[in-house]
């Protein structure tokens, strides 16, 4: 029978073995965040959820300084609204093939089964699954296509794109010889010209109009609602800034030949990107959330919207401000992280033995961290990581290390 056990030393030994629990201080759209929000952000989350559930089409800005947790908020929203198609893109990464990239993200998020079910439902609406004498399907693919063109295509601007999409959807449901290739087309795979001509299609979904129209078809006909989370939206504004003489690089090619002396290619790209985002707002049922680093950027975005069309300001909702942690949040955040970490490595004794303690650090250290970082979540994680690394790697006494942070 074990009469005595130094649980604190055991925890430290375990940490020496596993490393710091606070390694990841930048949230990304690719790696899922499992830890929920801190208490002070619940109201903020609820107000975003309310807007999403109440309205069908809007652009909702979320303003928060660097490291306040805007991307982390995406994951919290995704967990909360698990019954939505929620897609993340960052403008730091995606500028070219914008629609194609978003479409691919939607497909990845929805999955192939949803795509198949939408194709089936649409073809059913066009009369493909009509049963003669109550039992027998006698679909005539050309007739179904004609019904689709006559009844459905007028709602879409680009006729070539919608023609290809109707052709693909009907072939997917009714032409078994082409089903597999067409499914690849619908999934957004790159299709060579020979295959395209065999399928009787003009472009694959890399074409801007095709991917936009297909996304419209997908979002408007999906049973679940969709939310597009565009991170780092201020990138558009920063690209629009004129290049100062100091920044200007010496180039052999004179860009003014193409873009004139007043405009830079980046500005043109940014304007196009803004137009594309505004075009996305025309997709019925697509809710858009954008993140900005400051209120200045929000004002500039407002100006841009007004310059395009003053009516566009109606789709722009009042911004939601993401502030730093309040002091109470830090303790909750710290405990949540450690519980998640030790739970993940199956050290469940942590919940029993350290439920009321902040071991290996203490309340004073937490206070120091809060004051030092002013409650910025990213800075908090960085500092916690530094302290834990010192505890794990140094041979100094724990109290001596902690003294430096009090």
């Amino acid at each position, binding site marked *: 029978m074990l009469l005595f056990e130094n649980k604190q030393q055991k925890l430290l030994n375990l940490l020496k073995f596993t490393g710091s629990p606070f390694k990841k201080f930048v949230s990304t759209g690719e790696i899922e965040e499992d830890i929920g929000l801190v208490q002070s952000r619940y109201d903020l989350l609820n107000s975003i959820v309310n807007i999403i559930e109440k309205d069908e089409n809007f652009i909702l800005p979320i303003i928060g300084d660097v490291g306040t947790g805007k991307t982390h908020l995406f994951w919290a929203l995704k967990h909360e609204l698990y019954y939505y198609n929620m897609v993340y893109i960052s403008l730091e990464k995606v500028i070219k093939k914008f629609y194609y990239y978003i479409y691919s993200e939607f497909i990845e998020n929805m999955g192939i089964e949803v795509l198949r079910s939408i194709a089936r439902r649409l073809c059913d609406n066009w009369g493909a699954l009509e049963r*003669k*004498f109550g*039992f*027998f399907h*006698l679909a005539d693919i050309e007739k179904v296509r004609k019904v689709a063109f006559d009844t459905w295509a007028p709602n879409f601007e680009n006729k070539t794109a919608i023609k290809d999409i109707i052709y693909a959807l009907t072939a997917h449901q009714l032409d078994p*010889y082409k089903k597999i290739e067409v499914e690849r087309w619908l999934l957004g795979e790159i299709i060579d010209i020979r295959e395209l001509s065999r399928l009787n299609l003009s472009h694959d979904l890399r074409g801007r109009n095709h991917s936009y129209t297909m996304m419209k078809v997908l979002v408007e006909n999906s049973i679940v609602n969709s939310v597009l989370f565009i991170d780092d939206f201020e990138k558009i504004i920063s690209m629009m800034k004129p290049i100062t003489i100091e920044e200007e690089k010496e180039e052999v090619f004179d860009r003014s030949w193409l873009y004139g002396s007043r405009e830079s290619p980046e500005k043109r790209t940014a304007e196009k990107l803004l137009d594309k985002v505004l075009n996305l707002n025309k997709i019925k049922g697509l809710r858009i959330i954008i993140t900005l680093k400051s209120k200045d950027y929000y004002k500039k975005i407002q100006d841009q919207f007004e310059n395009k069309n003053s009516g566009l300001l109606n789709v722009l909702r009042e911004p939601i401000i993401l502030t730093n942690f309040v002091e109470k949040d830090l303790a909750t955040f710290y405990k949540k992280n450690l519980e998640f970490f030790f739970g993940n490595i199956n050290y469940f004794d942590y919940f029993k033995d350290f439920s009321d303690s902040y071991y290996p650090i203490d309340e004073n250290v937490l206070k120091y961290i809060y004051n030092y970082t002013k409650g910025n979540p990213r800075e908090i994680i960085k500092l916690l990581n530094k302290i834990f690394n010192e505890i794990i790697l140094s041979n100094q006494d724990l109290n001596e290390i902690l003294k430096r942070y009090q």
Partner: protein
Amino acid sequence: MTNSPNFILYDSLRNIQTNGKFTGAIISKWQDKIIFSDNIFVSELEGISISEGLMVGFEKIEKKFTPFSRTNNFKWNSNEIPLEYSVLIPENTMEQYDQGQFSNDFPFTLNLLHTAGLYINDLKCGINHLDFFKGEILKNPISMIRNGIIVADRVVIDDNGDPVFYDCLIVGRDKSDELKISYEPIINVDDKVVEYIIILGIEELKI
């Protein structure tokens, strides 16, 4: 006549009649013939009427059995209803049936243009083409078996010469003569219990 349990619209054997106008997937059995329809009107006073129903079966012409499928309107007065039963297939069963179907254009499937008899169990004038079609996939088979009807998406004749139906709706009576409906993705039937198998011609369905 008594009220029926859910899907039975008419059953002469158990004295069941559900009055009203019904639409959906309806199978009615009339002697050794089957009527498929998307509507039926059942009334205590006016009898039963089906508009635009497809009757499938064999008829004897000059001592030879000839398969047929014909579209017609049917009406019987309340005192002379020759139907044995009429059932409405539940929508969820039809959804299962729909999902299991091959497209008409599926490769390697034989789609007959005109309705043909694959098999009829008759001592004198029987037809048996089961061996000829061994291993082939035949689309739209309808079969009358000893105490039921099978409507399937396709049939394949196995090595023993028995028909294997795929994606089938089965309507039949159980031991206590109660009508039952079921869906089976695959069912192997011994040819001894088969009364007949008819392959519906797709051109005739279009008429």
